[in-house]
C-alpha cells in the first residue's frame, strides 16, 4: 500500500535525521567545546593534561568558577601549565585556588564558554573588569580606610622617593632591584606593609644595622631619616595595602568633592545618585546612546565624569574641570564600588574597623573633609565654580569674604545650609559630617585663603538705617545682580533665612563697603565711575532693608 510505504519512508528519514542530529550534538559537546580544545593543547611538565571540567568552589564566597577549565594554570596544583590561555597568576595575597576568580575579577564563573564567562554577553550584568581596572575588584571586599587627600598622598610619595627607600625596598612593583654589584633587594617588599604592619622601632633598627654593616648600599644609600620625614614615611606606608592604583583613585575621589552630592556607605549628600554600589551598574542597562567608544562600564563612567549632562540627559552634575588622571582615577574608584557581603571569616580587617568601630573611610582633617565634601561645587581652591546649565557656586575661600565673615557665620552656613538651594544642612548628622568636623573645615578655609578671622566687637544687630531709603538704594544698586527680592541672579541670594539669621550686621556692612575681589561685588564705599558710591548711612539703610526680608512671613 502506498500510504504504508510513505509512512515507512517518513519514519526512516526522520529516524536517520534524529540520529544525525544526535551525532552532531555529541560532536559539539565532546569535540568542539572551547575548553576541550584549549585543554587539548595544554601541557603540564611536557605532558598533556587530562581533559575534564575544572572548577574552584568556595561556598562561603558563593563562588563556583569554571574559569580554570580554560585557564588551567590558575587551577590548584596545575600552576605550571603552559599553552594557549595559560599564564601564571601574579603573586597576590589571595590564592585563586581558594578565592576563585570572579570574586575579584567579575565575570560569570559558572559559564564555560569564553564570551559568557568573560561576561561580555548581553544578559550578564557583571562583566569582567578590564585588566587596566583590575584593582577595582579589590573594592568587592576592601574598604580602604585612612586614605588622605590626593595632594597629601602625592606629597608623602615624593618624600618617600626623596629618601630613596626604593634603593633597597620594593614597593608596588618598583625599586629594590638587583644591582650589578651584587646588592639590591636588601629590604623586604613593602607593598603590603599597610596590612601586615611594621616594627615601630624600624628606624632604630636601621641605625643599629647601619652601624654594624660595611657593605656599600648601607654606606651609600642609607641615611638617618629626620623625625618629620619619618612620620610621613610611616603614614605613607600605612597606605601601601597592595592596591596602589585604588588608593590613588580614592585619594582623587576624596579631593573631588563627590560626597557633597553623592552618598557612599551612608556618608555624603543626597543630591546625586547613591554611589555605594555604583560599580555594580549593569552595562546592559546603561544608556550608551551618547557615549562614544566601547560599550563597557568603565568607558561609560569615563565619559560621564567628563561630561555628565551629555551622557545622562538632565543631569544636574556640573562638569568638573578634570585632568585625564582625575578622570581615570574617578572611573576606577567608581568601578570599585561593588561592595558585597562576605562571611565573617573573609571580612577584611580594614572593613571590619569601618563596620564595627565606625571608623571613617577617610582622614578627618579639614583639608580632606573639604576635599571630600566641598570641592565638587566650590572648587579645589575654594573659589567657586561656574558651569553651563547649573547655578553658580559661590567662592567660599575668597579672602575678602573670609575677612568680613566671622567663623560663626561660616560654620552656621555649613551646619544649616541654604534652604532651597543646593547647599544642604550638613549639621543634621545624616550626611556623615560630625559636629567637630565643622571647625576643622572652617579652619582649612581660612588657611586656604590666608585670612584670619577679624575681631568684631559690635553686637550682631546694630544697624539702624532707613528701610525706605534702603529699598530705593537696593533697587537702584543691588537688584541687578541680587534680584529685586534678593532671590539671587548672578550673585548669591540674600533673602535666605539662614544667611539672614547667621550673618552679623558687620558682615553685611563690611561686604558692601569693601566689596569682594575676584567677584562681581565691588566696594561700594569707594568712589568709582562705574558704580554708584554709597555713604555709610546708605549702606546701613540697605542693610536694614535686607534685614527686613528676614522678618516678613
Amino acid at each position, binding site marked *: *500500500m502506498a*500510504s*504504508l510505504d*510513505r*509512512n*515507512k519512508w*517518513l*519514519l526512516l528519514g*526522520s*529516524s536517520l*535525521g*534524529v540520529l544525525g*542530529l*544526535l551525532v*552532531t*550534538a555529541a560532536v*559539539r*559537546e565532546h569535540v568542539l567545546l572551547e575548553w576541550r580544545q584549549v585543554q587539548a593543547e595544554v601541557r603540564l611538565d611536557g605532558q598533556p593534561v587530562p581533559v575534564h*571540567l575544572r*572548577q574552584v568552589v568556595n561556598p562561603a564566597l558563593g563562588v*563556583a568558577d*569554571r574559569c580554570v577549565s580554560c585557564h588551567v594554570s590558575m587551577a590548584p596544583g596545575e600552576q605550571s601549565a603552559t599553552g594557549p590561555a595559560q599564564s601564571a597568576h601574579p603573586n597576590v595575597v589571595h590564592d585563586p585556588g581558594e578565592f576563585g576568580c570572579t570574586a575579584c575579577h567579575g565575570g*560569570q564563573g*559558572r*559559564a*564555560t*564558554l569564553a564570551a*559568557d564567562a568573560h561576561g561580555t554577553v548581553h*544578559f*550578564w*550584568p557583571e562583566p569582567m573588569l578590564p585588566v587596566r581596572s583590575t584593582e577595582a575588584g579589590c573594592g568587592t571586599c576592601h574598604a580602604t580606610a585612612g586614605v588622605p587627600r590626593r595632594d597629601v598622598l602625592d606629597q608623602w610619595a615624593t618624600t618617600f622617593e626623596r629618601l630613596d627607600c626604593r634603593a633597597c625596598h620594593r614597593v608596588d612593583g618598583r625599586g629594590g632591584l638587583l644591582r650589578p654589584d651584587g646588592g639590591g633587594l636588601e629590604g623586604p617588599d613593602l607593598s603590603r606593609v599597610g596590612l601586615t604592619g611594621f616594627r615601630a622601632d624600624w628606624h632604630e633598627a636601621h641605625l643599629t644595622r647601619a652601624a654594624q654593616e660595611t657593605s656599600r648600599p648601607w654606606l651609600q644609600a642609607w641615611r638617618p631619616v629626620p623625625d618629620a620625614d619619618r612620620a610621613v614615611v610611616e603614614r605613607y606606608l600605612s597606605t601601601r595595602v597592595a592596591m596602589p592604583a585604588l588608593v590613588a583613585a580614592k585619594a582623587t575621589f576624596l579631593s573631588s568633592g563627590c560626597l557633597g552630592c553623592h552618598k557612599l556607605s551612608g556618608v555624603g549628600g543626597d543630591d546625586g545618585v547613591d554611589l555605594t554600589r555604583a560599580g555594580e551598574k*549593569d552595562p*546592559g*542597562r546603561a*544608556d*550608551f*546612546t551618547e557615549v562614544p567608544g566601547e560599550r563597557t562600564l568603565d568607558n561609560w563612567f569615563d565619559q560621564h565624569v567628563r561630561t555628565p549632562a551629555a551622557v545622562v540627559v538632565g543631569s544636574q552634575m556640573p562638569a568638573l574641570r578634570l585632568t585625564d588622571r582625575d578622570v581615570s582615577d574617578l572611573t576606577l574608584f567608581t568601578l570599585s564600588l561593588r561592595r558585597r557581603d562576605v562571611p565573617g571569616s573573609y571580612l577584611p580587617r580594614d572593613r571590619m574597623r569601618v563596620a564595627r568601630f565606625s571608623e571613617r573611610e577617610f582622614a578627618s582633617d579639614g583639608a580632606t573633609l573639604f576635599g571630600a565634601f566641598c570641592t565638587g561645587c566650590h572648587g579645589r581652591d575654594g573659589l567657586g565654580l561656574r558651569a553651563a546649565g547649573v547655578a553658580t557656586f559661590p567662592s567660599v575661600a575668597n579672602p575678602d569674604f573670609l575677612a568680613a565673615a566671622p567663623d560663626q557665620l561660616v560654620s552656621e552656613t555649613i551646619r544649616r545650609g541654604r534652604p532651597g538651594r543646593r547647599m544642604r544642612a550638613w549639621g543634621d548628622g545624616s550626611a556623615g559630617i560630625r559636629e567637630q568636623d565643622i571647625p576643622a573645615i572652617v579652619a582649612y578655609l581660612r588657611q586656604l585663603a590666608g585670612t584670619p578671622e577679624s575681631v568684631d566687637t559690635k553686637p550682631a544687630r546694630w544697624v539702624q538705617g532707613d528701610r525706605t531709603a534702603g529699598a530705593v538704594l537696593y533697587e537702584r544698586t543691588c537688584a541687578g545682580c541680587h534680584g529685586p527680592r534678593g532671590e539671587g541672579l548672578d550673585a548669591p541670594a540674600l533673602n535666605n533665612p539662614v544667611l539672614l539669621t547667621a550673618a552679623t550686621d558687620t558682615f553685611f556692612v563690611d561686604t558692601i563697603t569693601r566689596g569682594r575681589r575676584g567677584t562681581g561685588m565691588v566696594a561700594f564705599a569707594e568712589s568709582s565711575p562705574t558704580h554708584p558710591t554709597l555713604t555709610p548711612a546708605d549702606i546701613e539703610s540697605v542693610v536694614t532693608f535686607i534685614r527686613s526680608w528676614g522678618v516678613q512671613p
Partner: protein
Amino acid sequence: MNAGHDALRTFRDNLRQVPGRLAATAFRTGAPRTDRSRSTFVFGNVFLHLHSVRTHRWSLRWATTAGLGIATLAAFFITLITGVLLMFYYKPYPEAAYLSMKDIHFVVPTGRFIRNIHRWAANAMVVTVILHMARAFYTAAYRAPREFNWLIGMALLAVTLGLSFTGYLLPWDQLAYWAITIGANIAQSPREVTDALGITETFDPGGLQRLLLLGSDTVGEEALIRFYLLHVMLLPLVAAALMAVHFWRIRKDGGLAKPADVDRRLAPDAGAHPLFTDAPQKTYHLAAIVRGRSPAVGRGPEHTVPSMPHLFYAELAVFMLTVFVCTALAIVSDAPLKEVANPLVPENPAKAPWYFLGLQELVAFSAFMGGIGIPAVVLIGLGLIPFLDREEAGTGEWFGGPGGWPLVRRAAVLGLAAAVGVEAFIIRFGWLREWFPGIPQLVITAVNPGTVLTAIYAAYSLWLVRRFNSTRAGALGLFTCFLGGFLVLTVVGTYFRGPNWHFFWSPADWPVH
C-alpha cells in the same frame, strides 16, 4: 537416584530455554504476520490496546488529521522525558533555581541540549494542540457522538497552556519573573470589575486567584514552589489522565470522524481483504461493543486495514518527525536565559509567553475583558459548539458544511482585516480614555477594542447563520474570525509592542532606558 538424574536434566533444559520462554511470555504472539496474530498483537499489549485492531483507511490519510494529535502526544512524551532529566539538577528555590539553570546550561553533560529540546517540544506542543483543535473543528469532528471528547480536548488545551506557563517561571530569570508577574496580574483582573462596583472588599475572586497562584502578594519562593508543583506533578498527571480518556473516547466514539459516504470516496484498495463473510453473524470485535452508527456494526469492516502495521507506522513516523523537528530546533537555537530575576528592576516591556501575548494585547485595553471576559466567552462558545451544531452535512470533511472553504476564506480575510483595523485605529487615534479622561472604568470594561472586535465577529457570524440557514456556517465563520484575531493580536503583541506597551515598527526603534 535415577529420578534425581532426570530432574537435573529437566532443570538444565529449563535453564537453557529461559531466553526463549522469557520472550514467549513477554510477547505471547509470534511475528504479527496473520490477521489473527496482528489482532492479538494490538489487544494483547497494554500500550497498544487503546487502538482498534483495524483502522479505517480514511483515518490513515494524511489529509484527514495531518498527524497533529499524535504530534501533540509525541511532544508531550518528549517534554516528559527531558523534563524528568532536567529535574535531576533543577533546584526549585529562588537564586538557586537560576544557578542550577546556569549549571544545566554550562556543565551538566547534554544539559543545554536537553533543556533546548524541552523548551522547543513545549512550544511545539502548544502549536500542535492549537492546530489539532482547529483540525477537529474544521472537519466537524466535534459532532455527536464526539461532543464529550471535544470538551476533553478543550481541557487538554487549557492544561497544555498551563504546563507551558508554569514552566516559564522555573528558570527564575528576568524573563520568567516578569512574564509571571504579568500572568498573575491577568489572573487578578476580575478586580477591575469588582473595584468598579465597589465590592472588592467582600467579593474578590481576582485576588483569590492570584493568591492561590502565587501564595503571596509578589512572585517569590512560594510562587516558585507552587509553579514547580503544578509543572512537574499536578498538571502532567491531569494531562495524562485526560489524554487517556481522550484516546479511549476516540475509539468508543467510533474512531475518527468520517464522511457518511466515505466508502464511496475511497478508491478500492487492491491489497485490502475483507475479514468476514458478506453477512456477518456478529460484530468482528466483541470487546468493542459500541453504540449507534459504528462502522463495525452490521457490516464487514470494509476499507479497514490491520492497525498493525498500517497505523503504527503512521504513528511512529509522526512521532519521529516530531522528535526530529524538536531536536533540530534545539541544535539551532538555545532556550533563552536572561539575568537573574530582580524584583527591583522591571523588564520594560515585560511580556508574557508568546501564546499569551494576544491576551496581553487585550489586557492592555481592559484587564478584566482581556484576561477573563473575552477568554471566557470564547471558551464557553467553543464548549457549546457541539451542542448547538446538530447538523450532519460535512462531517469528517475539511471545511465541511454549508459555505465550505469559500466561507472560511472570506471569514479569514474579515477576521484578519477587522483585527488589523481595530489595532490600527487605536494605535492611531487612541480610545475612550484618551478622548474623555473622566470616563468611568465600567464603560471602558464594556466598550473597548477587544469587545468591539468580539462584537464584529459575533455580528458577522450571526449574519452567516441567517444567510446559510445553518449553525455550522456561523460556527465556521466565528472560529475562523477568532483564529485570525488571535493571530493578529499575538503578532502585534510579540513584534510591535515595546516599552510601556507602545507601538513600534521594530525593536530597533525602542528607546534605550
